[in-house]
């Protein structure tokens, strides 16, 4: 199988993911941060280690400002619902995944006003299209770092600086970029960063997290035991305890730590350059095929290329790629109906190389598409 569906989840995983997961389940799968016996402490240290590695990936100064969640969607819900309430104004873009769009619409029902800024025709958000929406009630801008359909990377530094100057919270959905495109929360002026652990960070599914700038305290949407301040009837006001109630996914977090070590040893820049080469080659090879339209910008994109066809259904082609050629890609709306509307499509075929993809994989999918389209 040639796996080119890394935007959904990365595969294969670095060997350290398997060894760390296995080591944890076999040797120290106690409850971290509850008891103080040696196994519990060992578990807690592993959680700390992964949190610390994440702080290095995103240039977070205080690792405790990162909380583990089950996935990026949970993180986005925490960020949106934790800081917004009746009377507030939120701005998102029309490139957002349902993980932002749906909670935003739920908030709208409870009295938050929501504006949707339109990206340019290539799917990249121009700050000039975003900033005019700001008014006195605007509390937060929440946008994706890179669209999971068009792949275009938004200029976070420019947008972050403009929002910081105006005192508006800046939340970023890094589902498609964390681990594969450098992110610096300080230089981008990011107040809240939501990320998945199993995509570019190459950890197992069921892992994700949220960074919240020091001094910001979200409302909780889930409360419970934290192993701290247990005598208090209210949730602790400090991170990560405020957001980490209940037992965390210890084996998943340990395995994520393994993939983070792989990422940091390899270098995110190295992986980024590898994926740029693969994506450029894919764009070059697909660009000459008749009857095929490439979505998104020509350059500066995440490691994904979505295409549509003049007279063929993307889902049929994805099936053929799977059955006849053994190539795994994704078709459909990609949970981003606003982006589909933006590009004027009812679905697309998405090819997303990852850190372990090769030029041979790219040639194989391009040749297969050429064959299918000429048949």
């Amino acid at each position: 199988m040639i796996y080119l569906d890394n935007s959904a989840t990365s595969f294969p995983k670095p060997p350290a993911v398997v060894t760390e997961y296995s080591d944890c389940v076999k040797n120290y799968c106690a409850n971290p941060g509850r008891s103080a016996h040696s196994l519990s402490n060992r578990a807690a240290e592993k959680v700390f280690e992964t949190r610390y590695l994440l702080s290095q990936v995103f240039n977070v100064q205080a690792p405790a400002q990162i909380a583990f969640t089950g996935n990026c969607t949970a993180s986005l819900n925490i960020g949106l619902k934790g800081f917004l309430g009746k009377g507030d104004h939120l701005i998102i873009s029309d490139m957002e995944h349902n993980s932002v769009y749906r909670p935003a619409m739920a908030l709208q029902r409870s009295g938050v006003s929501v504006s949707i800024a339109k990206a340019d025709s290539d799917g990249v958000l121009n700050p000039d299209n975003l900033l005019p929406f700001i008014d006195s009630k605007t509390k937060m801008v929440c946008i994706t770092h890179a669209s999971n359909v068009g792949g275009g990377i938004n200029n976070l530094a420019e947008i972050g600086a403009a929002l910081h100057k105006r005192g508006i919270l800046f939340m970023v959905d890094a589902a498609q970029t964390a681990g594969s495109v450098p992110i610096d929360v300080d230089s981008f002026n990011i107040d809240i960063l939501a990320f998945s652990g199993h995509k570019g960070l190459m950890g197992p599914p069921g892992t994700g997290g949220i960074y919240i700038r020091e001094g910001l305290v979200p409302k909780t949407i889930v409360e419970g035991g934290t192993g701290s301040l247990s005598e208090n009837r209210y949730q602790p006001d400090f991170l990560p305890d405020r957001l980490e109630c209940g037992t965390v996914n210890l084996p998943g977090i340990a395995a994520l730590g393994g993939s983070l070590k792989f990422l940091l040893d390899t270098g995110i820049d190295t992986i980024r350059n590898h994926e740029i080469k693969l994506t450029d080659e894919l764009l070059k090879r697909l660009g000459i095929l008749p009857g095929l339209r490439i979505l998104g910008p020509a350059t500066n994109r995440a490691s994904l290329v979505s295409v549509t066809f003049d007279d063929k259904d993307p889902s049929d082609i994805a099936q053929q790629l799977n059955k006849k050629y053994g190539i795994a890609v994704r078709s459909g709306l990609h949970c981003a109906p606003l982006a589909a509307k933006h590009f004027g499509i009812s679905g697309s075929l998405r090819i997303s190389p990852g850190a372990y993809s090769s030029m041979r994989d790219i040639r194989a999918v391009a040749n297969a598409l050429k064959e299918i389209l000429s048949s």
Partner: protein
Amino acid sequence: MLISFKSKNDAIGVASILRSTGKNASAIQLPKKYSDRGCSFGVKIDARDFPAVEKAAAILKTKISRVYEVDNP
């Protein structure tokens, strides 16, 4: 010597950093008499390693809550 922190996460982190530099440190649940609100976890260290604790706390951007001059809590 016992050092208490705001959260268990800080105590675990500081102990972990200290041990990674060869110090003898462990995170422990503080006995009730040393535990004030929000400081139920601490780090047990050799008193000579206190500067290393301060350094580790600075790395984690956290602060020491209290210091107890006891060897065997």
